[in-house]
């Protein structure tokens, strides 16, 4: 799609404001309303061009949602150009689906406005702000529902990358391995560099494992992590009074 320059818009100029749209349908409706176009008979070629120009002007021409809509409009535009068999009653207007979507969206917008107004009115009535002291009272009784717990468990299982619950995959270097490596280094050397610990081609997991292991060992008092200059190399020093936990 060549979008080097804003497309010259036919008929009348239109104004679009930045950040004013909640999505491609919103923008499309804006273009249609502003030009007082009959939604049942949209001049699809003109609207498609204006839509492209508008997303270019708004810097939205890389937003997938808007591009998808632009492609959709162009498909309809092409379909409208195809010759239609004369006197064919079965011909379906390629714009029909678009019209249905626009109407549906307009309806949603109307409800959204109502919701907004209603929420605005509700937010004008405040509940009591100063909450009662509950410090001396025992914690409130709990509600726990088996179904809810199960739903949660299932959601968790499904969200896991692969089956972590039964995972037997080789790992680059886990925290435990990193801890071993650090302890080995500390046994022979009093001070070493983070880069030495990480080796020549560390994976992201290696780096994270090492950092976690370092922090844990530092917390346990086995070593000290220091950086002498900002952005300089990170030094790991064996702690003087080494106490095993």
């Amino acid at each position, binding site marked *: 799609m060549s979008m080097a320059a804003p497309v010259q818009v036919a008929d009348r100029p239109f104004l679009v404001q930045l950040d004013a749209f909640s999505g491609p349908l919103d923008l499309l409706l804006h273009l249609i309303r502003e030009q007082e176009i009959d939604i049942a008979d949209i001049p699809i070629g003109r609207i498609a061009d204006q839509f492209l120009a508008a997303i270019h002007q708004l810097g939205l021409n890389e937003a997938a949602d808007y591009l998808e809509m632009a492609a959709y409009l162009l498909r309809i535009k092409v379909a409208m150009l195809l010759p239609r068999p004369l006197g064919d009653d079965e011909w379906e207007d390629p714009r029909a689906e678009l019209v249905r*979507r626009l*109407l549906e969206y307009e309806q*949603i917008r*109307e409800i959204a406005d109502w919701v907004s107004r209603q929420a605005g009115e509700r937010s004008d009535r405040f509940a*009591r702000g100063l909450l009662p002291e509950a410090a001396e009272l025992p914690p409130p009784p709990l509600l726990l529902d088996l179904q809810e717990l199960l*739903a949660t468990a299932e959601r968790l299982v499904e969200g896991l990358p692969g089956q972590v619950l039964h995972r037997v995959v080789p790992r680059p270097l886990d925290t435990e391995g990193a801890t071993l490596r650090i302890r080995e280094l500390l046994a022979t050397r009093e001070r070493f560099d983070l880069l030495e610990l990480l080796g020549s081609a560390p994976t992201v997991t290696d780096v994270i494992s090492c950092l976690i292991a370092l922090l844990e060992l530092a917390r346990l008092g086995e070593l000290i992590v220091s950086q002498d200059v900002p952005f300089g190399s990170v030094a790991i020093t064996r702690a003087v009074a080494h106490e095993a936990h």
Partner: protein
Amino acid sequence: MRSLTKLIEAALFAAARPVTIDELAGLDPEAGEHDVRAALDELRLAYDAGGHGIEVVELADGFQILTRRECAEAIAEARLVHRPRKLSAAALETLAIIAYRQPVGRADIEQIRGVQADGVLRMLQERGLIDVVGRGEGIGRPLLYGTTAAFLELLGLKDLSELPRLEELSVALKPPGEVR
């Protein structure tokens, strides 16, 4: 003021959330639903007749004392209360779809709005306005969303039937299924 009314006032005040008739009846072993309703009426009347700045309101989960609307501006301007942040257009549209189509999955929401929905859905769920209410058919058994009591509370509604009916909207469109 009757003693039950006085207790109910204190209880509504202390709870700082909507309280049900049943809960209020628990304040007095001899009180039944009828007594509670009469007491609530007495309290409401006392606030109205006395020209008070607070009122008894019936919401989704029961009765609650709230400040009167006409006091909001002055209180907010005196910086005594923070007004909740307004929802974005994207959030409002998503809420509108879920309110009318529930239970509804992400794909349907995205189809109607023409925009990706994961971020908005997560935000609405974190704010407690929607929740997963089940799973749909099809690939991956998509999560289905519905509105919560907090949503009703946000709008000050008793239940979903108080939402405007589709026939009342100026844009006429029947729910899917009836269209084709």
